[in-house]
């Protein structure tokens, strides 16, 4: 069946695809008439006319079949997809009005076979109901995040899901304020598909609204300075409220005159208001100030309260700014074992470098805070102590803010610490996967995935599986088992080496997370796969809500095979499910993790930790040896010709490119390596700095020199010049302004700036900085997305005495709320443009006049069903009739008699069928009715009638009346003489008769 709106040649409901063939009809008709004059001249007049007409019809049909006829079925129905803007910019209360509007419009416009579909759109579009006759109202099941509006995704989804058997309309109900995507581009796509977009603007204009437009503070300051914090507020009407300022999350008193009040009561005029607050800077590092405006009341022109709050949207009442408070370069030491940290603190104290020591649990969670350190030293840190976001921050800290990292090893570090596949792995000068040449014991992991019944469960399930695979080394084995709805339990990725991860990630992408009835088949497969795997460590991870059944004897088989199972319970339905999963872990020696709905983001961390159990193989421990100096000239190894022995390290591989290996271990494994990553520098040392693997190092005279040189090499240069950095918000962009002075206080000209900013999505971007005046430089970058941006500026400039002046500076910009809350009125022009492009209408506010399912302007889809075979069969049939007309004589009396006989038979059959239906209905009567007893008695004993009828038919010697007889009946009538039946025989017989006649005549 094909669908088409093109009409090549349509005659009534028939459309011909190759209409030129139809020209054959008149040609063949003339030819037929010409031939018929002779060929059927022997027939009577009426037979001749009938034969000719029949022959012409047959030819017409057969030619028409060649012209590829199709039966046109023009749809009469309309399908409307309603796209409802569910973002937070739509005033609360409007959603109910939308529902009521659609309900009323249905009553007035929808016809019985018309269809309705519902899509909600906010940050993402979700189909709430597919376009169907059954859909009767606007439902909202899962609408996703509402801090943004991507109307384009809604329209695209509507186009993609528009059924092709009805004429489609899209009704867009929105304020037209989009924060992502391009509605106009989607409108072009709808136009191309011939789908008009009708618009129903959600009109609003916030009468009383206050927005914190901007908060400004100097980008750099020093301890003891007093900085001025400027808060820019925009008010639509006069309003009064309280201004509160917090420093790093703690409210500070900006109203010392009033002991009961921390904030300041302010009155705002319509338009832009700038409020200034003087603040003392008391500590070094990055300080985040947040300003919050709490609305109290609207004001009249005379300054009296209006009795209203004076503000409609509170999400846009806050803003923040960051100042970097300068100090001598500070290094952050992150260590969970204080003995290891003390050694480094001593080294850096002697080098007059300020340090701050924290355990991994206190690692900063914001980039500005991290950027206030010039360098970071990681001592035996495991990846699972850090969230994915923190690992990403660390990578950005190096790449975009120019920070330094010295990563020192230990049993919990590098590949053995779960850093393989982490965001930080990209920033390291070594590859954490072991080199292929190393013959090392491998780990094997079998993943069993079961349905995760939560919104976006499949998405999270895939993220989890990816995290598990990322955490393995390339030599490890991995296999994935799932219950595929239509195919049963099987390996969707058979146990095989991780390799480049492409194939296994493809398999993960295809996972369906089927709802398995029983764990048994999956566990049996995993047990068999892991038992046969050539691996040292074998482990199984089960992700499930825990409700499949399970034979506990299998767990004993796992235990005896030395294979552990860790179970991840995602939203178990009951304590029993938790128990099932916990039993799996307890019996086999694995771990049970309970994951609630709102803690899914932590799941990848679980897998990193789990994968660690099979990555212990990455640690080399043995007889002490001294790592070999590679001889590569390096600032870090200046004056160091040899290093003391070590007896352990984490195996990693050399990284191609600009990485520099300065110390090597067994089989050329990199021990110490370094490189520049983005603006920052990284050093890795895969052995440790404690008595565990490097006992003789602490007593080594070169110890301090070695580590001081390595740490100093990575630290961000503080610089000799003085830079005053400020930022200015210009629409969706931010301008960074730098005023530079050399050490003598003169304006610094001709400086070469290398600037980069981190962005909220983790992708840093370069910023072009140009000199715009004496000692003044400017650059711009995009800050459209909400979040934090840290700009790092590295500079080189010629000094007055011919020396090169270089150094760095940072500035931070924050966008505290999404654009969703900036819109103060409906974007009617955009909506009208969309309707205009697609040929849609602006729907009236009265739903009874909306005619949402209106047919006007719609091109109804046509369904074409090929009919050539039908034409051909009828044509051939009529052709046979043509032969019959000429060869067979029809006796009307005989036909009438035949019809009469048939009618009598049908009548008997109909009576029998009515009786059968009556009996069936009697049998099917309600149980709760009066016939209840009768039914009840039947079910306890076999139905005698039925039992009787079910008996096999016994064959006896006696023939029963009215029963079919067995054997041939006696023939009482003599067999008639056989007559020829086919035409050939008839012809032969005729010939024979003619010959006989001739013979007889001759004989006569």
């Amino acid at each position, binding site marked *: 069946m094909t669908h088409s709106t093109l009409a090549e040649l349509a005659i009534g409901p028939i459309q011909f695809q190759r209409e030129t063939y139809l020209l054959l009809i008149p040609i063949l008709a003339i030819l037929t008439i010409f031939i018929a004059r002779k060929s059927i001249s022997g027939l009577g007049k009426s037979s001749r006319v009938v034969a000719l007409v029949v022959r012409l019809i047959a030819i017409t049909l057969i030619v028409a079949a060649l012209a590829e006829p199709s039966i046109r079925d023009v749809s009469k129905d309309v399908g409307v997809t309603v796209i409802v803007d569910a973002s937070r910019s739509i005033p609360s209360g409007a959603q109910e009005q939308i529902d009521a509007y659609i309900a009323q419009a249905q009553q007035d416009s929808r016809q019985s076979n018309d269809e309705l579909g519902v899509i909600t759109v906010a940050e993402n579009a979700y189909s709430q*109901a*597919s376009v*169907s006759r*059954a*859909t*009767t*109202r606007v*439902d909202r*099941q899962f609408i996703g995040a509402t801090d943004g509006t991507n109307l384009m995704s809604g329209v695209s989804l509507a186009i993609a899901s528009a059924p092709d058997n009805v004429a489609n309309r899209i009704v867009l109900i929105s304020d037209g304020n989009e924060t992502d995507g391009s509605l106009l581009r989607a409108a072009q796509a709808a136009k191309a598909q011939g789908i008009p977009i009708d618009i129903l603007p959600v009109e609003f204009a916030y009468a009383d609204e206050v927005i914190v437009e901007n908060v400004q503070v100097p980008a750099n300051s020093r301890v003891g300075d007093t900085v001025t914090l400027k808060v820019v507020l925009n008010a639509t009407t006069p309003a009064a409220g309280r201004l509160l300022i917090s420093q790093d999350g703690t409210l500070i008193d900006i109203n010392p005159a009033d002991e009961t009040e921390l904030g300041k009561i302010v009155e705002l005029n319509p338009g832009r208001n700038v409020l200034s607050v003087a603040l003392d800077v008391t500590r070094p590092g990055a300080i985040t100030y947040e300003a919050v405006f709490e609305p109290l009341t609207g004001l009249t022109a005379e300054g009296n309260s209006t009795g209203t709050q004076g503000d409609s949207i509170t999400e846009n009442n806050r803003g923040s700014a960051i100042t970097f408070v300068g100090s001598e370069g500070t290094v952050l030491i992150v260590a969970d074992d204080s003995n290891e940290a003390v050694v480094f603190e001593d080294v850096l104290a002697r080098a007059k470098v300020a340090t701050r020591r924290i355990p991994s649990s206190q690692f900063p969670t914001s980039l500005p805070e991290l950027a206030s350190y010039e360098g970071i030293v990681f001592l035996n840190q495991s990846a699972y102590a850090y969230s994915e976001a923190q690992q990403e921050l660390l990578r950005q800290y190096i790449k975009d803010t120019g920070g330094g990292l010295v990563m020192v090893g230990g049993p919990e570090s590098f590949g053995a610490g779960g850093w393989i596949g982490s965001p930080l792995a990209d920033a390291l000068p070594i590859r954490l996967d072991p080199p292929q040449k190393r013959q090392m014991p491998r780990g094997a992991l079998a993943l069993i995935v079961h349905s995760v*019944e939560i919104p976006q469960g499949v998405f999270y399930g895939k993220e989890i599986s990816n995290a598990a695979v990322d955490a393995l080394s390339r030599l490890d084995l991995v296999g994935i088992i799932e219950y595929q*709805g*239509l*195919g*049963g339990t099987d390996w969707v990725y058979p146990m095989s080496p991780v390799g480049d991860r492409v194939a296994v990630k493809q398999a993960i992408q295809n996972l369906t997370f089927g709802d398995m*009835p*029983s764990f*048994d088949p999956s566990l*049996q497969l995993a047990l068999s796969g892991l038992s046969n795997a050539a691996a040292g460590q074998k482990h199984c991870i089960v992700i499930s809500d825990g*409700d*499949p*059944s*399970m*034979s*506990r*004897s*299998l767990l004993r088989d796992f235990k005896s095979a030395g294979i552990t199972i860790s179970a991840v319970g995602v939203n178990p*339905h*009951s*304590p*029993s*499910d938790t*128990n*099932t999963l916990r039993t799996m872990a307890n019996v086999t020696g694995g771990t049970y993790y309970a994951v609630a709905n709102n803690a899914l983001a932590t799941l990848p961390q679980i897998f990193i930790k789990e994968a660690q159990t099979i990555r212990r193989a990455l640690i080399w421990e043995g007889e002490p040896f001294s790592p070999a100096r590679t001889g590569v000239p390096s600032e870090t190894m200046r004056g160091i010709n040899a290093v003391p022995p070590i007896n352990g390290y984490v195996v990693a591989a050399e990284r191609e490119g600009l990485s520099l290996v300065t110390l090597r271990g067994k089989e050329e494994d990199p021990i110490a390596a370094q490189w520049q990553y983005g603006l920052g520098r990284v050093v890795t040392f895969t052995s440790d700095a404690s008595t565990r693997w490097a006992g003789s190092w602490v007593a080594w005279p070169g110890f301090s020199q070695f580590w001081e040189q390595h740490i100093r090499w990575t630290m961000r240069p503080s610089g000799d010049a003085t830079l005053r950095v400020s930022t200015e918000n210009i629409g969706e962009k931010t301008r960074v302004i730098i005023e530079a002075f050399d050490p003598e206080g003169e304006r610094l000209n001709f400086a070469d700036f290398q600037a980069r900013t981190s962005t909220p999505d983790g992708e840093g971007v370069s910023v072009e900085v140009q000199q715009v005046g004496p000692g003044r430089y400017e650059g711009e970058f995009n800050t459209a997305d909400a979040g934090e941006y840290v700009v790092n500026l590295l500079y080189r400039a010629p000094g007055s005495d011919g020396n090169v002046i270089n150094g760095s500076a940072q500035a931070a910009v924050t966008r505290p709320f999404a654009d969703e809350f900036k819109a103060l009125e409906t974007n009617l022009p955009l909506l009208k443009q969309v309707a205009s492009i697609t040929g849609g209408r602006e729907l009236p506010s009265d739903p009874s006049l909306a005619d949402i399912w209106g047919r006007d302007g719609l091109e109804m889809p046509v369904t074409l069903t090929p009919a050539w075979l039908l034409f051909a069969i009828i044509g051939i049939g009529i052709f046979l009739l043509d032969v019959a007309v000429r060869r067979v004589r029809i006796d009307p009396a005989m036909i009438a008699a035949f019809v009469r006989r048939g009618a009598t038979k049908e009548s008997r059959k109909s009576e029998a069928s009515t009786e059968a*239906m009556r009996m*069936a209905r009697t*049998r*099917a*009567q*309600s*149980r*709760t009715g009066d016939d*209840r*007893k009768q*039914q*009840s008695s*039947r*079910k*306890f*004993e*076999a*139905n005698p009638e*039925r039992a009787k009828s*079910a008996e096999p038919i016994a064959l006896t010697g006696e023939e029963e009346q009215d029963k079919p007889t067995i054997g041939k009946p006696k023939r009482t009538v003599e067999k008639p003489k056989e007559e020829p039946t086919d035409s050939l025989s008839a012809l032969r017989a005729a010939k024979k008769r003619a010959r006989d006649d001739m013979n007889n005549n001759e004989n006569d």
Partner: protein
Amino acid sequence: MIRTHTRHAVLPLLSAITCVLCGCDGQGLESSASLNTTRVIGESGTYNGQFVYPRGMDIFEYEGAPHAILVDKTARLQLMNLETGTVIGAIHTPRWDRGKPTGLTAAPSLLNESKLAIYVADTHEFRVLMYELPLEPTDDPQPTEPDFQFGSFGEEPGQFIYPTDIAVDTDENNAVTDIYVSEYGGNDRINHFRIDRSTNPPSVIWDSQIGVVGEEVDASDHPLAMSRPQSIELWTNPTTNQREIVVTSASHHRIGRITTQGELITWFGDPLDTSDTAFNFPYGLTILEDNTALIAEFGGNRITRIDLESGEHLFRYGETGRSVGQLAQPWAVGVAGDQLVILDSGNSRLQFCDLPIDLPPEYAQPGAGGTP
């Protein structure tokens, strides 16, 4: 009549030809044959007549026409007239945040024997709910408290982990006398309750436990070892005239016959048999008047008919797939008129199928799970 199409002589003929071509003679089948679906009701969605992975169905006669009660993964109960395909009543169970019901049985009300009621195995709420008919005629079903409920979470006698199905027995006056509830979740068994009518409303008193959870994969640890008993039915054996419970022990891939006193009669199927002829997660169960049973195989995506006395396979229909005539994880099966009605859960629809042989009506045991 359910079918909207007139039965033509050509249909049985075509079916017969199809059967011959597929090697199907209606007896002793080992390979699965195609279904001749003549009608489909339902599609994916949350409005009346639509389903989101429906997981429970029972077909019964109501107001003179065959009806089905259905429940899906939105915890909506829809009462559907199978002749017209219209939903005449719909409700939500009171809570569904932990999970949704799976088993449904239409039987006389526990409170009023003259009324028909729906017994709901509210699986993830660890209880049995009872709603008397009619259900609220609405297209916007609301959470509705049941007319009667019993059960609580636990492994003690009479408590439930995950109830899956209910079988109801009645006396000659249609009054409910016994209720059997199958369950799984580590407590795989059948709980037998007696109805005590000395109280008002009547009390549901625990009587006995039938079956134990199977710890071994091959079910060798106990004669009555069960693993996910998904459906139960009551049946009177015409040979012995004895009441029996028929159960599908889904994860052991077998069908059991047990006396109501808890004595094993026989198992059909072997947990370790992985051949094509073995049951593959038998979920749905419906007994027919001729003492045969229809089994919906969730894992096998097919419908199998067996002789309940001998266990002999009589036919097997269904292919895996999404097209009309194909099945994806069928949870339940029944008979309406002379058509096979399959709850094609994975495709969110009901399929009505013609068979080349006549199907007898469902076994007319009142109250037995899944029968009219």
